[in-house]
C-alpha cells in the first residue's frame, strides 16, 4: 500500500513542480540546440538551392549525405566529441536543477517560486554533484562488472555457440538495468534527505541513502521498478512514434516539434515522478519512525 500511496503522492508532487520541469526542459532544449542549430544550418547550407531535398522526404538518404562530401566527413568526425561534451553539460544541468526540484517536492514546500527554486538549485549543487558522481562511479563499476567482464570472457573463450555471446549481452544488460536501479535509489534517498537538512553534507546524505535503501529495500525497490518500467515503455513509445512519423508539410513539421517536445516534457515528468515518489516514501517512513505523541493529561481538580 505504501508503494502505491507514495507513487500517487509522487505523481501529484511532480505535477505541482511543473514550473521546475519546464525550466529543466528549457535547459535541455538550450544545450541540445547548441549543437542542433549549427547542424541544421550546415545541412541547409549544403543543400541550399538544390532539389535534392526531394530525396529526403522519406527519411535519411545515405547517398545525399555522402554527396555533401568533406563537410559531412568533418561533421561526422566532430560528432562523438560534441556528444561527450553534451552529455557532460547535460549531467551538470541535471545536477543543478535536481536541487530545486527535490526541494520543491518536499511536503513542507509551499507554493512553487522560481526564486526559491534557483536558490535551492544553487545551494545543493555541490552536494548533489558529489552524490551524482559517487552513484555514477558505482554504476560505471557495475557496468564493467556486469556487462563488459562477462562479454570479454565469453568472447575470449572462443565459444562455439553464437547464442551464448548474444544472450550474455541481453542478460547482462537486463541485470545491469535492474541492479543499477538500487544505486539510483540510493542517490534519490540521499538527495531527498539532503534537501530536508539545513546544512549540506553529501557524505551523510549518501550514508542515509544507503541505510534507507537497504532498510526498506523491497518497498523502495519495487516502487522504483514500477516507475522504471513505465519510463522504459514510454521511451520506447516515443522512439516508435518519432522514427515512423514523417510529416511533409510545414504545419506537420511544427506539429512534430510540439509533439516531440511535449513527449520529452512528459518523460521529464516521469523522472520527477520517481523523485517525488522516493521523497514521499522517505517522509512516510520518517513519520513512522517518530515517537508517538503523548496526549497531555489534564490534572484532576
Amino acid at each position: 500500500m505504501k508503494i502505491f500511496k507514495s507513487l500517487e503522492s509522487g505523481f501529484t508532487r511532480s505535477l505541482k513542480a511543473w514550473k521546475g520541469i519546464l525550466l529543466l526542459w528549457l535547459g535541455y532544449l538550450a544545450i541540445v540546440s547548441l549543437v542542433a542549430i549549427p547542424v541544421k544550418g550546415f545541412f541547409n547550407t549544403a543543400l541550399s538551392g538544390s532539389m535534392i531535398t526531394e530525396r529526403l522526404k522519406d527519411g535519411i538518404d545515405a547517398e545525399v549525405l555522402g554527396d555533401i562530401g568533406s563537410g559531412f566527413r568533418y561533421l561526422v568526425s566532430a560528432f562523438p566529441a560534441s556528444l561527450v561534451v553534451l552529455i557532460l553539460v547535460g549531467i551538470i544541468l541535471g545536477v543543478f536543477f535536481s536541487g530545486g526540484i527535490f526541494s520543491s517536492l518536499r511536503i513542507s514546500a509551499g507554493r512553487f517560486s522560481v526564486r526559491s527554486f534557483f536558490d535551492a538549485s544553487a545551494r545543493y549543487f555541490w552536494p548533489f554533484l558529489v552524490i551524482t558522481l559517487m552513484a555514477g562511479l558505482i554504476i560505471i563499476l557495475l557496468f564493467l562488472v556486469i556487462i563488459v567482464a562477462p562479454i570479454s570472457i565469453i568472447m575470449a573463450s572462443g565459444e562455439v555457440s553464437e547464442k551464448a555471446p548474444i544472450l550474455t549481452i541481453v542478460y547482462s544488460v537486463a541485470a545491469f538495468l535492474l541492479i543499477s536501479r538500487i544505486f539510483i535509489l540510493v542517490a534519490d534517498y540521499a538527495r531527498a534527505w539532503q534537501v530536508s537538512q539545513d546544512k549540506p553534507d553529501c557524505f551523510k546524505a549518501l550514508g542515509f541513502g544507503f541505510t534507507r535503501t537497504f532498510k526498506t529495500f523491497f518497498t523502495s525497490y519495487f516502487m522504483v521498478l514500477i516507475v522504471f518500467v513505465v519510463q522504459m515503455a514510454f521511451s520506447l513509445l516515443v522512439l516508435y512514434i518519432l522514427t515512423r512519423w514523417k510529416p511533409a508539410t510545414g504545419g506537420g513539421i511544427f506539429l512534430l516539434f510540439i509533439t516531440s517536445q511535449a513527449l520529452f516534457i512528459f518523460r521529464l515528468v516521469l523522472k520527477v515522478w520517481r523523485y517525488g515518489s522516493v521523497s514521499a516514501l522517505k517522509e512516510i517512513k520518517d513519520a513512522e519512525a517518530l515517537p508517538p505523541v503523548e496526549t497531555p493529561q489534564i490534572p484532576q481538580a
Partner: protein
Amino acid sequence: MKKNLLTIFAVIFITCTSGAQVINQNPLSSRITGYKIDARLDPVNKTVTGKMEAFWVNQTGETVDNIQLHLYMNAFRSNLSTFNRGSGKVTDSTVLGRIDISQFTLGDGTDLLPLTHYIQPDDGNLHDSTVIQVFLPQAAKPGDTVSIYAGFVTKLPSSIRRTGYTKDFFFVAQWFPKFGVYEPAGMRRRTSGGWNCHQFHSNSEFYADHSVYDVTITVPDNYVVGSGGMLLDEADCQDDASYKTQKWRAEDIVDYAWTAWPGYAQFTDQWRHVKITLLIPPERKDQVSRQFTSIKNALEYLTMNVGPYPWPHVTIVDPPLIGSGAGGMEYTTLFTSSSTWKIPSFIHMPEMVTVHEFGHAYFMGILATNEFEDPWMDEGINTFWEERILDHYWGERSGMIDHPAFRMADKSSARSSYVYSPDRQVVSNKENSWSYPKGTYSMMSYMKTATWLSTLMGIIGEETTNDIFREYYRRWAFKHPGPDDFIDVVNEVVKKNHGDKFGPDMKWFFDQTLYGTGLCDYKVADFRCFRQDTSITRIIEADTIVRGKPLKDSLYKCIVDLERIGEVMLPVEVLVHFENGNENLLTWDGKERIKSLELFSNSEIEWVKIDPDFKIRMDVNFINNSKVYVTDRTPVRRMSNKFIAFMQLFINAFVL
C-alpha cells in the same frame, strides 16, 4: 612395368574424367585440366593428406616445355610470404599452414621433384613458395596430355582467412596443387603464349581452367561434409570404422573446396532443376528461409537476364561464428554466406552476401575471368548484379536496410563508398588486384565498377544492358574472357540496339570510367528568365525573390547555365520545369565545360535538374545537379526536430 601400368591408368583416368558425364549430359567446358583426389582429414593434427592424379591437355597450337602449379596453402607458411606481407598480419607459428609434396611424378612414373622449383613471377619474393614450375622431360606438343601424380600433406592454418580451421570446424580451400592457366598467344589479347600462374596475394583471388573433380573425402563419422561436388557415394572407411568415406564429383567448375564440421544442420530445397543444400549451425534455423529465398531470387534473376545456371546442384555454407573467417567466399557450386543468430530481418546483410557469392557462379564461375589481373570483371560486375537483384526483390530503396527509421538501397552503399572515398582518383580499374594502393582494392574493384556499370545502364538502357550480358554469356561461358572481350560485346550490342546513337563504339565510355581516374560531376550553375521586352522580371538577390507582374501572354526568354566540373564527359538529360507546370526534357552531350541553354516559354523557370532520374550514378555530387531558388527546407527541419528530441532523450538517460 610400373611405368606402363601408370600410363594405362592415366589414360583411363583422363578418359573417365574428361569425357564421362555424371552430372550434365554434355561437357560444359573444353576440360583442359582434371583432378582426381583422395583426401583424408586428420582433425587432431589439422591436416589433409591427399593423393592426386591430375592432367593438363595442351589444347593450344604451341609446344610447352614446362607446367606451372599453384601451391596456395604455402601463403601461410611464413610471415614473409607475399600473402602475409600484403595482409600486414604477423602470425605466430601456431597459426601457420603449408602444403608439403612428398611425391611428384609424371603419369609414367618419372620423378618430377628434381625438375621442380619455386618461382615468384609477381614480386620476386624469394620467401614466397606459392607457385612451382616444373620443366617437363619432354615438351608437351599441341594435343599432348601431361598427367601428374602428387602425394601431399596440407597443414591447415588455425586463423581462418578463407581457409583453415578453428577447433573442430574445417574449411578446406586452396588445399591441393593446382594448375595455372596456359594462355596461348591471342588469348585475352596476349602477344605471346605462356602460363598465367600468379602468386597468392592478400588482395587477390584466383584464375583456373574449368575442370572435372573426382574427390574422395575421408572424415570422422560424426562430421557433416559439404563440397562443391555432388555426393555419389558414402561408405564406412575400410581401414578405420570410426571414419567415413564420401565420393564427390564436380564438373566444369574452376575450384574445389569443402568443409567439415560436426555441428552443421543440413537443409535442402529445390529451384527448378537445382537442388540447393544449406549447411548452417542449428541455432540459426530462423535464417534458413532467408537463405533459400535469396538464392532462389538470384537464380531466377540471373537466369532471366544473363543465362541459365547449368549445374543441378549448389551448396550454401553459412559458417558458425568460430568459422566466420570462411564467410563470404565463392567456389562456384559451393559458396559461403554470412549470417548470425537472430539477425533482424530488416538488415539484408545475409541476403546480400548470399546473392553476391552465388552471383560469382556466373562472374568468374561460368565466365572465368582472371581475378588476379582483372578483379573488376568478377567483383565489380558481380556487385552490379547483386545491387540489381537486391533492389529488385527487396525494394528499390530498401535493398540493404528496410526499417521505418532508415532505408538504404544496395546500390546506394556501393555508390556512397566510391563517392565518399578520398582515394577515388588514386588509380583506375585497370590494375592487378595486388597492385591497388592500400585501402583502394575493394572500393575500386567492387564499388567503382558497380557504379560505372550502373551509369552505363543509365545511358544505354536496362534492356540493352541485359542483352549485353546475355550475349557475353552466350559467347564466353566456360571460357576466359578479358576486358577487351567484354568491351567488344558491349560495342556490338549497343550498335545493334541503338545504331550510331552513342558513336561508332563505346570506347569513349570505357576510356573515362574503366581506364580513367577522372570524376564525373555536373552542375546546374544558374538560370534566369527575361520578358521578351528585355526588362528583367525576376531579380534574385540573397535568396530574396522579387517578381515582376506576370502577364498572361508574356513570352519569356530563359537561359540555363550548366557546368561540367569533373573530367568525365557523359551525355546527360536536363529537365527544365516552368512555373506554369510545363516541363522540357533536353539532352546535352556533356562535353563543354559550360553550356548555356536558351529556351522560350510563357512562364518563368521554377527549377532545373540535370539527370533527373539519377541515371548517371558516377556523378559524385547529386546535390548540385539541380537548382531551385526556393529550397524545400521541410526535410531538414524535420530531421533537425527529430535530432533535438533524440538528443534530449539520450542525454536525459545519463542524468540520475
